[in-house]
């Protein structure tokens, strides 16, 4: 089953959360990332996400597989928007169900952190002053390889 998706349409978190319900799962932790109206001191009026879809879904699936292996969790769903978003829109949603809350919290944190660092998705912010630009965080050297 596909557990990491890109979506061009708004995210329906309620539907995703229902998929996480299992009789053995006593805990469900979800993370919602939403579009903020400011970044680095600038007033933001909207943004657009662009993805390398094939690689993003493959890398997302790898991250989910890692979480399933590292934490005693039951199920995971991750979804990331692509295309144009407005302030307040849901940009990324991560949900984890587990028997107990510790693993669900830890896995959810792992998933969102790894997604932000590794999945080939780029954000272009549009500012109230009329400018816009791609965010390429800190512009420091990135790893040139993963697992050979």
């Amino acid at each position, binding site marked *: 089953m596909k557990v990491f998706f890109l979506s061009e349409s708004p995210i329906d978190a309620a539907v995703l959360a229902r998929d996480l319900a299992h009789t053995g799962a006593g805990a469900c932790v979800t993370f919602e*990332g939403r579009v903020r109206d400011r970044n680095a001191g600038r007033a933001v009026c909207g943004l657009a*996400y*662009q*993805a*390398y879809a*094939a*690689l*993003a879904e*493959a*890398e997302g699936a790898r991250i989910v597989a890692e979480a399933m292996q590292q934490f005693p969790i039951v199920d995971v769903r991750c979804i*990331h928007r692509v295309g144009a978003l407005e302030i307040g829109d849901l*940009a*990324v949603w991560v949900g984890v169900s587990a028997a107990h809350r510790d693993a669900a919290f830890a896995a959810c944190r792992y998933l*969102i952190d790894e*997604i*932000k*660092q*590794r*999945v*080939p*998705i*780029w*954000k*272009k912010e549009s500012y109230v002053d009329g400018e816009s630009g*791609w*965010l*390429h*965080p*800190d*512009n*420091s*050297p*990135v*790893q*040139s*390889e*993963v*697992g*050979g």
Partner: protein
Amino acid sequence: MNYRILYFAALRDAAGCDSEQVAIDTTDARQLYAELRERHGFAFAPAHLRVAVNGEFARWDRVLNDGDEVAFLPPVSGG
């Protein structure tokens, strides 16, 4: 050698297209990027980019094959 190059984010804007076919006499990803950088005026040095070949992350020293689909990926900013 013929390659299909995919561009994303700032590189897509600089290239003015999301992909292009490139004929070049090299199998070296660094040489390929250097040529494309000169052609399109890309700001990124190779150290700031990752390489993907045929939809999978690859190393900069990967030997390219004729017909490969190659992407040079700027630092990501999802989430």
